[in-house]
């Protein structure tokens, strides 16, 4: 057995494209694509943008790009947490209600208890983290499967939300209007900025830190990871907490952007399912052990592009589903085809 490209077999990164007959620049581009696992999803996202721009030339205008960004950001932020959870072998259905609850918590704290805005924000995040902790505790220590545990939590929090809010939207607290509201979602590119920062940060966490390595280990081989001395429960609980806090952030950003604190932000489980879909489209395995944060961002982008593009073209609701479904199927089949090409073509 030996590697074709080097007699010692010790080269760290085999130059997979030796022997190809392409121009150097293309070759270089090819190599990058071949190495980069999110490449196929990116290509699909770009192809889609090209298609929509060709059918409707306002697609790539500044205003519409902002629309797409605003639709991508909350799903991507939630998807980041979901990726961490899926990679560690768990799932959380309650994130969507946390998203709806968090802005209400800010509202309650400020408007009912007179807490200043910044501590109110902190409070909302702390409570969200505590919810994540409860989820993690019930899953790891009490051994309830995460789907059922977080389903229970979902109903519980929904009950809390509807009873305390009387199922009625509230207004953004006056104290939070202005600069804070702009920063937390209302400014044109605010939610995208948050989203990119979070994606970048957790991309590094997942790929370059112990936490990420242990998250992958726990999800890939729970017994093996435990045997290697990794404290699986801590990792899982931590990821539940991260997912909850990111859910809360997404909810706050959305509430401030649409300028209304609505009990239906997140649409029940809809936001979570969009996020799970984005994660899976981006290449995260439902079975755990493997996933990418950047892929999830691209997955969310693809879903947002589809929604926005077909809306621009002017497709109405009923046939919309038909076309959306076909587009998802076609693009994902293409995606799989591209990523198989990528894998067989290179390292």
């Amino acid at each position, binding site marked *: 057995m030996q590697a074709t490209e080097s007699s010692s077999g010790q080269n760290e990164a085999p130059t997979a494209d030796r022997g190809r007959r392409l121009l150097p620049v293309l070759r270089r581009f090819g190599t990058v694509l071949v190495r980069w696992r999110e490449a196929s999803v990116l290509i699909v996202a770009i192809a889609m943008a090209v298609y929509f721009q060709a059918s409707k030339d306002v697609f790539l205008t500044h205003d519409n790009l902002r629309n797409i960004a605003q639709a991508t950001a909350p799903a991507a932020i939630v998807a980041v947490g979901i990726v961490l959870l899926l990679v560690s072998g768990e799932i959380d259905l309650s994130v969507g209600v946390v998203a709806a609850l968090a802005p209400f918590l800010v509202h309650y704290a400020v408007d009912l208890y007179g807490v200043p805005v910044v501590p109110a924000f902190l409070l909302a995040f702390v409570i969200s983290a505590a919810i994540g902790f409860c989820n993690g505790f019930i899953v790891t220590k009490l051994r309830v499967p995460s789907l059922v545990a977080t389903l229970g939590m979902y109903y519980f929090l929904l009950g809390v939300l509807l009873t305390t809010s009387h199922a009625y939207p509230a207004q953004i607290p006056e104290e939070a209007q202005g600069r804070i509201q702009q920063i937390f979602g209302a400014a044109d590119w605010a939610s995208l900025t948050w989203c990119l920062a979070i994606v970048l940060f957790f991309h590094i966490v997942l790929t370059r830190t*112990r936490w990420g390595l242990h998250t992958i280990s726990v999800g890939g081989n729970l017994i093996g990871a*435990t045997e*290697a*001395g990794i404290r699986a429960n801590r990792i899982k609980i931590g990821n539940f907490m991260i997912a909850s806090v990111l859910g809360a952030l997404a909810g706050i950003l959305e509430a401030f952007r649409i300028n209304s604190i609505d009990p239906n932000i997140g649409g029940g489980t809809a936001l979570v399912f969009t996020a799970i879909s984005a994660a899976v489209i981006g290449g995260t395995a439902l079975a755990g*052990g493997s996933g990418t944060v950047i892929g999830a961002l691209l997955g969310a982008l693809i879903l947002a592009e589809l929604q926005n593009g077909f809306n621009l073209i002017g497709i109405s609701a009923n046939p919309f589903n038909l076309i959306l479904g076909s587009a998802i199927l076609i693009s994902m089949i293409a995606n799989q085809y591209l990523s198989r090409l990528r894998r067989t073509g290179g390292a």
Partner: protein
Amino acid sequence: MAEETALRVEHVRKQFGALTALSDVSLRLEKGEVLGLIGDNGAGKSTLIKIICGYHQPDAGRMFVAGQEVVLRSVDHARSLGIDTVYQGLALINELSVYHNMFLNRELRVGPLLNNRAMRRLAREHLTDMGVNIPDVSAEVAKLSGGQRQAVAVARAVYSDARILLLDEPLAAMGAKEGVLILDLIRDLKARGDVSVIIIAHNYAQVLDVCDRVNLLQHGTITFDRRTSEVTVDELTELVVAEYRRRRTGSGS
């Protein structure tokens, strides 16, 4: 004497439901010693190792590390006491690269970030020392051959700075040459004098080659404890087979 004993296990018992895997095991590992643990398939050797490394909690019995009684809460706890293990199941994470597996849970870091470059370099060095040829240490372990996988698991434990090494059939999948080199490594560790090792192996020649003492686990307890200088391969084989004959005729009646 207590100073010199790296590990003492006393009257350990372990049940799995209705099955008694270990009924009453006591053993002792001196500092700098290599102890061979042999026994039939299903005798409970791996179970014993997993108790010593903190993975299983025993149902009864006591453990002393360097003379101090300990109650291990987790594998992590045992590691903090200097106990490191090669599991029979290898405990590799298929989704991770060779070098990440090799440094799993003792990753090298720069600040909060992983020092992948250093880990890659060391991983290559270690594998070369073991005579194992893995073309790309960045490849996922899922793609490795059986022996390559075992080499990664062995390297993980052997190159840690553990004071007590537990090796559960570390040579099972190793080639002839690679096996010899790993045994050399273990001898090196022994020569340094501060590492104590328990090795499980079914190849008695290898056991006698590297071990100072050999214990036989049968019926959930240690039935035989002798210095290797005092026994031969044939004697050990005879011991095991005799037991088998006795059982055959026993159950046939």
